[in-house]
């Protein structure tokens, strides 16, 4: 009788990459709901449009490379990238913004490097940064949160939203506005308390910024679900959020006009939570070991704060993630865990074992 020669182990856990990716996609739902509730249909349209673009782009590249399209599409990584990019883009952004960003994400940042598993940079963030630098106006036009809409104005309905996105119609007055980080950054000469009192984005907020705080809570919930299902370890997100908190407490000067803002505001504004749980946890482009992820996360946190506080960009998660991606392979070389039976950690560049 003849049998197959197969390497051990023979047993296999039920987890697989497609399931992981799908779970991450589902975990964005609380955040998406919050976005849709507070900012209208725009985000949902972004997500759908980006997903369609991503799947087509990925299939096209795979076709060009002569790979099995079905096999690679089934890993859902393109969908995940598109969903994350769609969530990060401003709602009701023109369709070409979404399409261009997604194309850059999938084609340049992912497929040129060989596809899933090989991309050194987070594809969604590459797409985002390219858009931010190329189309600053479209990228900084946000929607006013539901609670702050002027009387008689509401978010555009689904049909109207579609025509804004695809036909270039202008949304009604008052529907677009600044984000909390934006308005905070450009309120020079005002004390923090004054900003909080004068700007409805803060004065009518629960604890950080109208609408935004709930979006962040939504992503936090999704992130905790993923953490609970052991999709990633706590090291990265905790290090990143911790670093943001520590930096903002360190530089909180009691609320002077130079103050870059409170820890609470930084943690629950902009893309903090989404960055911490959905962007920087992208394992492909992050550091490999737990210790490496602590350093990697902290680096992102520090960079986010630095750029938010003193740089030109009000939100900095995308830049910070890309910069940390750049550093990740280097971090990996010097953060190997201590292996059983060894006294010290080793460096990846070590030539021979020191006996």
């Amino acid at each position, binding site marked *: 009788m003849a049998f197959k020669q197969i390497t051990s182990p023979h047993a296999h856990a039920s987890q697989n990459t497609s399931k992981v990716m799908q779970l991450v996609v589902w975990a964005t739902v609380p955040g998406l709901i919050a976005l849709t509730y507070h900012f209208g249909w725009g985000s949902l349209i972004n997500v759908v449009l980006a997903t369609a673009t991503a799947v087509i782009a990925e299939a096209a590249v795979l076709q060009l490379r002569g790979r099995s399209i079905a096999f690679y599409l089934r890993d859902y990584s393109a969908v995940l990238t598109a969903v994350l990019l769609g969530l990060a883009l401003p709602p009701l952004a023109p369709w070409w913004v979404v399409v261009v960003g997604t194309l850059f994400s999938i084609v340049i940042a992912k497929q040129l490097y060989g596809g899933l598993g*090989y991309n050194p940079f987070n594809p969604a963030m590459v797409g985002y*940064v390219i858009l931010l630098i190329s189309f600053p106006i479209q990228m900084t036009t946000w929607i006013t949160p539901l609670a702050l809409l002027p009387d008689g104005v509401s978010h555009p309905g689904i049909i109207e939203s579609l025509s804004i996105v695809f036909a270039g119609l202008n949304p009604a007055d008052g529907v677009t506005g600044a984000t909390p980080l934006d308005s905070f950054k450009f309120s020079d000469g005002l004390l923090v308390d004054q900003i909080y009192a004068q700007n409805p984005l803060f004065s009518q907020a629960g604890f950080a910024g109208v609408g935004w705080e709930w979006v962040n809570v939504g992503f936090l919930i999704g992130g905790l679900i993923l953490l609970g299902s052991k999709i990633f370890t706590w090291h990265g997100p905790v290090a990143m959020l911790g670093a943001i908190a520590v930096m903002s407490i360190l530089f909180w000067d009691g609320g002077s006009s130079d103050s870059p803002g409170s820890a609470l505001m930084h943690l629950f504004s902009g893309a903090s939570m989404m960055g911490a749980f959905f962007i920087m946890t992208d394992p492909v482009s992050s550091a490999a070991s737990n210790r490496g992820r602590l350093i990697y996360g902290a680096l992102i946190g520090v960079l986010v704060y630095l750029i938010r506080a003193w740089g030109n960009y009000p939100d900095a998660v995308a830049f910070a993630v890309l910069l940390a991606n750049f550093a990740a392979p280097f971090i990996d070389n010097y953060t190997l865990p201590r292996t059983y039976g060894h006294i010290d950690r080793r460096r990846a560049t070590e030539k021979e074992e020191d006996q």
Partner: protein
Amino acid sequence: MGHQPNDVQAMQEFAVILVSSILINNFVLVQFLGLCPFMGVSTKLESAIGMSAATTFVLTLTAMASYIVDVLILMPLGLIYLRTIAFILVIAAVVQFTKMFIEKSSPLLYRVLGVFLPLITTNCAVLGVALQNASKDLNFMQSSLYGFGAGAGFSLVLIFFSAMRERLAVADIPAPFEGAAIAMITAGLMSLAFMGFSGLV
């Protein structure tokens, strides 16, 4: 901030120069200077570290030497128009000196750096530092620091980049993009990320 004591102010100034030269005006990723060693010596981490050390050394030394030549010789004699040629002379001498030093102290590094070591002479980053120093009217300390910062910035991105390229060596990159092509794309994406530093300081 004008009321703060002088040394604190000086310290802040130095910090600004460093941050500016390392991150915001990074010679490679923002000013696009010194790209040939950046692409050429980044396939291996070890040689990248060696190249970084050599370049930083040369940059600092050149910044100092060119300052001295500029202030003590060119300015008094009204020969500012000779800056470029005088600086090139300075750079050539410093690089040659570094080359001899490395050849003696680390033959393998010497071999690994190969043609790029003498090429530091023509590394535009070096001349760039000397000329920028002169045009910015920095003093001796500031010039040296600027030179060192430029070297540190170069080292930072070169070392990170080489660690990344080592990883890319295994990636399943489409054939037309293998090697230098994907490295250029990576450098481009990096430079994109470095735009995030603009406005800092």
